Each structure stands twice: as C-alpha cells, then as structure tokens.
C-alpha cells in the first residue's frame, strides 16, 4: 500500500454553540478542506454543539455571516455520518425537528437520498469515538 492510499478515520467533535465563539465556523472550514483528502470522515455534535445545527438561524441583527446553510452542503462533500448526541438534545429541550434536515446521496444504493444525521446515545457515541484514528476537537 503506497503512502497516498492510507485511509484514517477522522472524527470532528463539535461541542460549542455557534456565533458566541468562532469554533463552529472554523471547524466547518476544516471539514470542507479535509473532504478533499478522502479519509473516512465523521462529525459529532455534543453538548452546546447541537445548537450549531438549528433551523432558521438569521444573523442579520448581529452583523455576522450566517454559515448555517453550509451544513446542508456537507452531503455534496460526501459526508454521510453526522452524529448528534441524544442526551445533549434532550437536555436542551430540542428534537430532531428543531435541526436542519441534512442528507447525502448513497452511491451504493442508486444514489438514493438518505439522512446524514444519526441520533445516538452517549454510549453509542463512545463506541464510535473508540474506533477513530484522529479526533479533532473545536
């Protein structure tokens, strides 16, 4: 196997709310650049990170760029595994209906449109974390 073909499991862990700090936006910028490297990519949204995915963000009043539409482009970058922690959503009184609907097209299933967001418990997320080679936290 040549050096170029190494595939590692990358997990991006998002634990911060958007706009109060820049981590959410700059994390997304890494994900988009990273997509070109053809690694096995997953995203996790835990704690206040789940707030990044809320529907209906409108930043006109704070004069900051609204980057939430970018999450909908992740499917085009072939990002298929977006894990949202169940306990974090519940603690915030949110359900999946409060979040954007993120999809990807499954090339192994005749390009059927599928949900990218997977609701997982903390323990399930723990199992996923253990399988990763590289964890980038923001």
């Amino acid at each position, binding site marked *: 196997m040549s050096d170029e073909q190494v595939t590692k499991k990358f997990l991006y862990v998002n634990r911060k*709310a958007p*706009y*109060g*700090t820049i981590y959410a936006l700059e994390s997304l910028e890494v994900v988009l650049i990273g997509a070109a490297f053809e690694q096995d990519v997953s995203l996790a949204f835990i704690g206040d990170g789940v707030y990044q995915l809320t529907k209906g963000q*409108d930043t006109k*009043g*704070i004069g900051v760029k*609204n980057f939430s539409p970018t999450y909908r482009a992740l499917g085009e970058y072939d990002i298929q595994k977006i894990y949202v922690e169940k306990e974090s959503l519940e603690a915030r*009184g949110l359900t999946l209906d409060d979040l954007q609907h993120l999809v990807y097209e499954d090339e192994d299933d005749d390009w059927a449109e599928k949900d990218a967001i997977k609701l997982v418990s903390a323990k399930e997320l723990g199992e996923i974390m253990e399988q990763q080679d590289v964890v980038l936290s923001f």
Partner: protein
Amino acid sequence: MSMLHTVNKSPFNSDGLSSCLQCALAGSSVLLIEDGVYAARRGTQYEALVQEALKDKKIYALQPDLEARGVKSNLIDGIELVDYAGFVDLTTDHDSVQAWL
C-alpha cells in the same frame, strides 16, 4: 432602578447564570446576550431556574442573538425581548451594570 446584570454564556457551559441569579436582588434585572440567550428557551434543564427567578426579577433577552441562533420561538413566558437600542435603555434605566463573564 437598581442593577442590570448581563449574562453572556450558555448555562450548560458556565455557572454564570446560576451564580448571577443567586446574587441578584429582588427587583433587579437580568439581560441574556450572546450564548446566554439559550437560557430563554422553554424545555431546557435550566427552565426551572429561570422560572423561579422571574418571580421577583425582570429577565430580558437580546433578540438579535436569539434570531442568530435560530431559537427565537418557544421562549419562557415573561421574558422580554429587546434589541440593541433596548439594551442601551436598560443600562441607562438602571443605576449600574454588572457583566457575569
């Protein structure tokens, strides 16, 4: 008159809100800004804390920050929304301002 307290952090990642509400006297006001506005939502783990505070304090939330975060609906009854002009008015209507950073 009395004091205006501002809280700018999510209650999940700071004890700023709970500490503020413990100290703030009856009749004082609390303004939620930045990530602090998440505490204005119904259904969070911190709703009871906010409901309790509303019994003897005024609680405000900065509307532009709620809108940016997509959480302007489903707010706890009794919380009043203000824009930046309203924020300025709150600071002049009170004797002093304390930020809970």
